[in-house]
């Protein structure tokens, strides 16, 4: 299970400082926020805008454009299931349906108890051993019902 620090401005400013000297620092800064805090706090946007001398709207636009930059903390576990064609061809749709049913959760949502966020991903590059999944950054290939149930048990703990 990933461990994140609570949002704090000093730490955020330090992270901005780590990247501000590079060309095009905005994405590296946002990635470092995700790695550190697990999400991008609303308070981060004016901070970054000020440091990079761009408008808050520009920062907000970038944060909301990319799927990776979540604006709220995820569940304790993040389970991503691939929904792209190669996984569809290997029975991925049934795996997705089973996961939604077993977790009582539609794709793109976090369980009420905060245990897990279920998300679609469009291709993990494991298309020859599909369907595939990613759980807390760990990749899993050839996901069948048995493997899925083990993943669900893992996120439910």
């Amino acid at each position, binding site marked *: 299970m990933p461990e994140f620090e609570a949002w704090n401005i000093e730490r955020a400013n330090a992270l901005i400082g780590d990247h501000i000297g590079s060309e095009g620092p905005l994405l*590296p800064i946002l990635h470092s926020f995700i790695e550190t805090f697990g999400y991008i706090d609303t308070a981060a946007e004016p901070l970054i805008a000020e440091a*990079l001398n761009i408008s808050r709207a520009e920062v907000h636009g970038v944060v909301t454009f990319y799927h990776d930059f979540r604006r709220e903390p995820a569940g304790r576990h993040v389970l991503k299931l691939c929904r792209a064609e*190669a996984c569809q*061809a290997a029975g991925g749709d049934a795996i997705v349906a089973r996961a939604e049913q077993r977790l009582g959760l539609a794709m793109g949502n976090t369980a009420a108890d905060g245990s897990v966020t279920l998300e679609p991903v469009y291709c993990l*590059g494991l298309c020859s051993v599909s369907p595939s999944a990613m759980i807390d950054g760990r990749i899993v290939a050839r996901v069948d019902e048995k493997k899925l149930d083990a993943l669900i048990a893992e996120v439910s703990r």
Partner: protein
Amino acid sequence: MSALRIYVPGDAVAVACGADEIAALIKASAQRRKVDVEIVRNGSRGMHWLEPLLEVVTPQGRIAYGPVELGDVEGVLDAMLAGGGAHRLNVGIPEEHPFLQRQTRLTFARCGIVDPRSIDEYKLHHGYKGLANALANPSSIIQQVTDSGLRGRGGAGFPTGIKWKTVADAKSDKGLADQKYIVCNADEGDSGTFADRMIMEGDPFVLVEGMTIAGIAVGATKGYIYIRSEYPHAIAAMNAAVAAARRAGYLGPSVAGSQFAFDLEVRAGAGAYVCGEETSLLESIEGKRGLVRAKPPLPAHQGLFGKPTVINNVLSLATVPTVMDKGAAFYKNFGMGRSRGTMPIQLAGNLKYGGLFETAFGITLGELVDDIGGGTFTGRPVRAVQVGGPLGAYFPRALFDTPFDYEAFAARDGLIGHGGIVVFDDTVDMAKQARFAMEFCAIESCGKCTPCRIGSTRGVETMDRIMRDENRAANLAVLQDLCNTMKFGSLCALGGFTPYPVMSALTHFPEDFGAPPARLEAAE
């Protein structure tokens, strides 16, 4: 006695099949047995149905075992310690396996063989020979790449040498010191493709070398490798390779002791498919939303930060060292028509023998799917194959005689794209696939141009009506009209090529766009 050398692939496919746990178990078991083993985390050979494919070095060569599961480790280790002995999972010498025997590996010559972390091993296997030739005659690089016939492997198939020439000749504004960039597009988002990932994880120095040669050729001193965030292993492998190349003096102010400076930086994407489009990717590196730019100006004239930029796919750049090592004529000798050299083809989806198959252009789709891929793993008949990712056309069996060649696929309203083939059996609903193509475009559209942004959403709605058998004939006309608008009115390939899967599904599988009997009964 020297340690027993065991290869356990560190490629993401092997890792996703349990290779990390297996490597740990081998280490623990060897300690318990008091035998000295050296575990090398190599790339993948590309025989993915055998992953994790372990190998042991013996006097007869390397002997492979796969697919190894955790419960097999003790038995396999026994066989390995016996000098590559018999075991249920023994597949013999990998190079002699028919799947590899039938290939022509130029770009993937080292992948799965070398230790991807070792620059010394890279050099022992022809590594940096291309750079040496490039440094011996820098002014000839572009001519050599042009003569090789190498075309962009990202999908568009634009001649690499001509692109480089444009950047080399580009004058910067105000005549200031010419900052130019080399950008590697490693945003391999197409479903059914994984060749870029495999090269980056299995032979990362070849990409570093290719980009360095590109930098010397066009006068660029800085390069970026933009890798999608869904590829954490590739990002780690490239970062390690860049650091190692820098330490060894192959990157930095004096490349291999020459007067040329060149350095590289890895950048991670953030989950936007459209950033695989070259101008969107440049915007993303600049720290902006990945909005597609209108062309002209071409990136070759005004690319990254407005400077002249070579932007090439991983495979294009990774092929350059071979061209510079073996010569343009050697490379050009492979292939057919205007598609010269080899293409790393990726066999994916519902296929018995999936993986990476590099071969000269000209092999037919049928050979790839039936002979090499072995048909479906579900054992059901192959009904459709999608070639070239989510923006590629669906082909039925009737088109299996199409040779793998840029022009041959275009002539049949398809594209080879990045060389991915996704196989579907007869349970596939092609109307559903057409709807998915529109849905995916709607999710991933950058929103800049109307045909893509609105057209894809209207496309999903129209497909829903067709699938509900609502004014079917009229809605099919709307769908074709929408596809026409998207194809000719979109700024980039996302909106412009989404009509390929939609229209090919409709053209080749019209029966799926009728009213399925089951649904009619349910509605009554």
